[in-house]
Structures are given as C-alpha cells and as structure tokens.
C-alpha cells in the first residue's frame, strides 16, 4: 500500500515537473543573480534597471526572476544551480566572484545559456561581459586634478581586483596630465556594500587632507559624507546627484539594459552564442552622468575627452606606462596596453605612493 502511494506521489511529481517544463517552453525564462539588494542605489540597482528594460521590451515573451543578496563563493553556486533547475534558460550572474561558480553550473547544465559580468572565463554556453569603466575613471581623474585645491585625491576601494586597480591607475594617469605632483590616498574597505564603513572611509580620507573623493564601492554613503563636509566627489555605478547636489562632479554609470535586450533577443531568436563583450563609452555600456559643480572650462575638457575616447583618438592606457619602480610596462597592444593587460592589471603606475594589499 505504502509503495503504491509512493509511486503515485512520484508520478504526480513527475507530471508536475513535466508540466512546469511545458509552461517554461512557451516563455523564455531569464534569471538574474545579484550581489547586493536591488535598492543599493549602485551596482545591483543598475543591473535591476537593465532587467526592467528587458521586461518592458519583451513583455509576455519572457519571464524574469532575480535572487538578490547572494554572497560570492559556494553560496552563489547553489543559487545559480537553483535558477537553472527552475527552468531558466538564460541566466545573468552579475558579480566578479560568481565566475567560477557560474562556470561549474554551466558545465552541468549545457542547455542553459549563462552570462557572467566582469569576469574572464567563458565556455560554450557561458559568455562574459563587462564595461570599460576605466574610460570613465580617466575622465574623472582629469576633473579631479583640476578641481582639487590641495592636490590630494581620496579613493575608496572595495577589493584589490584588476577592475578596481585599473580604475585607480586610469584616474592617476589622467590626474598626472593636469598636475604631475598629484597625490592619491587609497583606503580599501574590503566590502562592496557597507554604507557605515564606506562613510567612515570617506571621513578618514577627508580628515587626512583629501578634498576630492572617488569610490569603487556601491552605496551613496561617501557622496553623502563629502556633501556634509563641503568636499567634492564622484558617484559610482548610478547617478548619485540626489545625495550630493552640490558635491557630485559626475559619475561613471553602468548601463546594462541595451546589452541585456540584445542578448535576450538573441536567445529568443535562437542565435545566442558564447561571446566576450567588453564595451565602453562608445557602446554606451558606460555612461557619464552630467558634469556638474565645475567651471565651464573643466566641463569642456571633460566633454572633449569623452568625445576623444569615443572616437578612439584617446586611449587611457596609452604607452609608455611606467610602473611604480619607474620601469616601463611591456606594451602588448601596440600603442596601448592590450585588453588582457587591463583586465588582469595587478600593478600601480608611477606616482601612487602605496602598495596593493597582499602583494
């Protein structure tokens, strides 16, 4: 009797699962994994804006799900697997630390398409995409050096990974063009998201003499502290002008929507292929927030630089580039560092009086 009941239950479960798959076949199920809360007003928020864009664009043709606050590492592998098993055919994993977990899940689920943000590993069914954020950082470096009265910039870093380090270097290379003696103070908070800690770091930088604050963390806390202290700051990921109407100079904002629309369309059309996308100002994956709180000449310089980067006439990592030891860095990309060198950057350029932690 018991066995019969069990068999019946199994049958029920099997039909239930089959039914689920049948429903899923009608619509393309798209899943997103987020590192922070959708309301972080920074990194995750921008991905969420991208998700909303595909919902608007494709309406009934797709069904989207997202998991927020998924920490990097083993926990994320479980979450990604869960999305794959729930019938999602296209899954976006939106943080660097999801790279290896995504790859593992991708190997186990060859029919599911994966898209991993800001990493460098790919597979037949796993694409990678990222923004050339350093292009925006270069513009910020120019503005910062022009606007800083004390010649000391404050930089809040999250983790010493290539993406963040290339941002610091681009900032410094640009700033040195304006003021060869410019100084930069770097504080690592070892978290992407902790408003209190980010605020403390901003206070520490200001107290130590920096007068322009830049950040590579996800909340508007630093902007808010700078605004309270009457200093200047750059937003991060999102336009944070609300938190510092008289403080924000500009912000490097991430615009994932168009890419997401393109990829979902490819998946719907059956033309999706594993690709490596690295888009910047030109492709509008990286967009500068309006230039505010600066004199017209600085604004013009910023806009001209932006135009030059888009036109390809200005390359932020143009050779020769000197390392901290004063020796020239090998130039693999002809007249500028090649993408691999930027995506794997683990050195500071000359003029940064600090050490990469753990190196």
């Amino acid at each position, binding site marked *: 009797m018991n066995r019969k009941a069990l068999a019946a239950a199994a049958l029920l479960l099997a039909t239930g699962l089959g039914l689920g798959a049948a429903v899923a076949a009608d619509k393309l199920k798209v899943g997103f994994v987020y590192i922070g809360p959708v309301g972080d007003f920074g990194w995750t928020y921008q991905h969420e804006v991208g998700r909303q864009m595909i919902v608007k664009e494709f309406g009934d043709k797709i069904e989207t799900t997202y998991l927020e606050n998924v920490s990097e590492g083993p926990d994320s592998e479980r979450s990604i697997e869960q999305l794959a098993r729930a019938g999602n055919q296209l899954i976006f994993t939106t943080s660097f630390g999801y790279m290896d977990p995504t790859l593992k899940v991708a190997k186990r689920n060859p029919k599911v398409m994966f898209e991993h943000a800001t990493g460098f590993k790919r597979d037949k069914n796993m694409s990678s995409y990222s923004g050339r954020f350093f292009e925006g950082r270069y513009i910020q470096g120019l503005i910062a050096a022009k606007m800083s009265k004390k010649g000391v910039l404050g930089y809040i870093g999250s983790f010493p990974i290539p993406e963040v380090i290339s941002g610091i270097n681009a900032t410094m290379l640009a700033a040195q063009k304006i003021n060869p003696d410019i100084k930069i103070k770097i504080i*690592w908070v070892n978290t992407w998201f902790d408003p209190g800690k980010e605020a403390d770091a901003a206070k520490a930088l200001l107290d130590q003499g920096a007068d322009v604050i830049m950040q590579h963390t996800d909340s508007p806390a630093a902007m808010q502290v700078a605004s309270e202290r009457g200093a200047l700051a750059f937003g991060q990921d999102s336009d944070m002008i609300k938190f510092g109407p008289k403080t924000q100079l500009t912000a490097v904002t991430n615009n994932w929507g168009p890419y997401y629309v393109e990829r979902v369309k490819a998946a719907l059309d059956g033309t999706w292929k594993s690709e490596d996308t690295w888009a910047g100002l030109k492709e509008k994956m990286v967009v500068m927030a309006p230039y505010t709180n600066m004199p017209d000449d600085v604004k013009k310089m910023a806009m001209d630089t932006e135009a030059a980067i888009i036109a390809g006439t200005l390359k932020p990592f143009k050779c020769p580039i000197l390392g901290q030891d004063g020796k020239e860095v090998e130039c693999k990309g002809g007249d500028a560092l090649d993408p691999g060198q930027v995506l794997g950057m683990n050195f500071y350029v000359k003029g940064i009086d600090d050490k990469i932690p753990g190196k």
Partner: protein
Amino acid sequence: MELLEAIILAVLAASTPLLLAASGELLVERAGVLNLGVEGMMIVGAACGFAGAWATGSTFIGALCGILAGVALSLVFALMTLGLAVNQVATGLALTILGIGVSGLIGAGFVGERIATAPRLYIPGLTTLPFVGKILFGEDAFVYVSLALIIGMSWFLYRTRAGLVLRAIGDNHVSAHALGYPVLKIRMFAVMFGGGCAGLAGAYLPLAYTPFFVPGMTAGRGWIALALVVFASWLPGRLVIGAYLFGAVSILQLHAQGWGVGVPSQLMSALPYLATVVVLVLISRTRSGGSTAPAALGTVFVPDR
C-alpha cells in the same frame, strides 16, 4: 591635534550603534535569554526609524519609531521562546531573517530618499572649546543616550532589588520561580528592553550615521553587538570598553591605510574580529574557567503549575 579630534569623533559615531544594541542584549542575556535576532531587530529599527523621520522630519520621532519597531519584533521572539518555549537559538536566527525581509519591504519605498542628519548638541562656549569641545559637547543625542543607558543599566543591575532579581533569574530560573518571582514576566520585559535598544541602534544608522536608507545597511553590526556581550563577559563596564575599542580599531585601520602603513588591508579589516577572538580566549583561561555567563543562559523555562 585636529586629526586626532576627527578620529575620536569618528570612533564615537562608529561605536554608538554597537554600544546601544549590545547594552540591550546584555540585559536580555543577564535575564537568561539568548536573543540572536539583534541584527533583525536593528535593521527593522533602521527601516522604521527612517520612515518615521522621513514622514515627520523629526529625528526624535524617527528614533521612537525605531524603538517601537524593535520592541514589536522582540515581542514575536518573546511569544515564541517564553510563551511557547521554543528553542531560543533557532527563534533568534529566524528573527534575523524575518527582520531583514520585513525591513526590505518597509524600506523599499524609501530607497533613494534623503533626510537631514540628526542635530548635534551645541552649547555656546563649551562646544567651541578647542579639542574637547566637539567631542564632549558636540555629539548627537544618540551618543549621550547610549552612555546614559549603560550607566542606568549598571545601576539597575547592581544597585536595585529588581536588578538582583533579574540576575537571579538569569542564573537559576527554577530557584527564582520557587521564591515566587515571575520569571517569564521579567524575562519578557528584558526581551522588550533589548528589542528597543536594538531598534534604536538600528535607527541610529539612517538617522545620524548615513542619512539614507538602503536594505541591509546594518551590515552585520547586530552580530558584532552579540559578540561584544561575550567580549564584555556580561559586565556593563567592559561593554563600554569593548564597544569603543571595536570602533577605534575599525576606524584606525582605515586611517592606517590612508597613511600608507604597509600592512595588508585585508588583515586590518579582520583586526576587530581577531581582537574579539583573543579576548574570548583570554576570558576562558581565567581561573573561573570562563563561567561568567549567566548560568541559565539560553535554557527554556516552563513553570510547573
């Protein structure tokens, strides 16, 4: 000198939410109840505190909303663990998960909104004193409240009969019950007090620290408060030292990086936690063998009728 003043101000600000939340939890644990839901009560306090201040424009009402939210959530805990005698550890953990969810729900509409920072004390002549002026007479109300709270609690625990009864219940609820003390009632008040403190600590974050609300903004401070209670070996005096020490280490490590001290920042970030572990080891090596914890801590009490 100016830098030192700035550092001390930052340390006070960073330590205050820890001190507030840990004070409440200390009293709860002294009554023999282990409420691991501090993080959950804090984050709900943060969301409700922000909502209150945003709607009324008053920091005071915001703080009040935070306290009430913390108390409300702690009543859920009291109902489960005291009324229904459910396991305290499991309930506390569930409370944190619940709190994070509820706060996200309440706070969803407030993301991206701003409020004015809590006003700071200003006494002409005193606040303008060099160096000590701002530190002693220029803080926001939360800092003074947190210190008053710990002094009041010390007095209550060691100088009043009610405090003695509360400690007795925490050490041996069966005996206290036999003597005719209302164990569950007193524990309930203690849990509510703890909830209020956690709610206030949470409200401090969006009201005074960073005047906006984002989900998850407590970022683990509730857990640190829990560790601080153990760090202080359940003594209010040591709690103050612990909270300020913790705040100091976390601020100083940021400054050390700015100065370019050649220590990896990952290690610096871990320092406050390492300090906690070291103190825990030291405590447990004392003669009493670390038995400073309330004897009935975390055990369920069901009165025989």
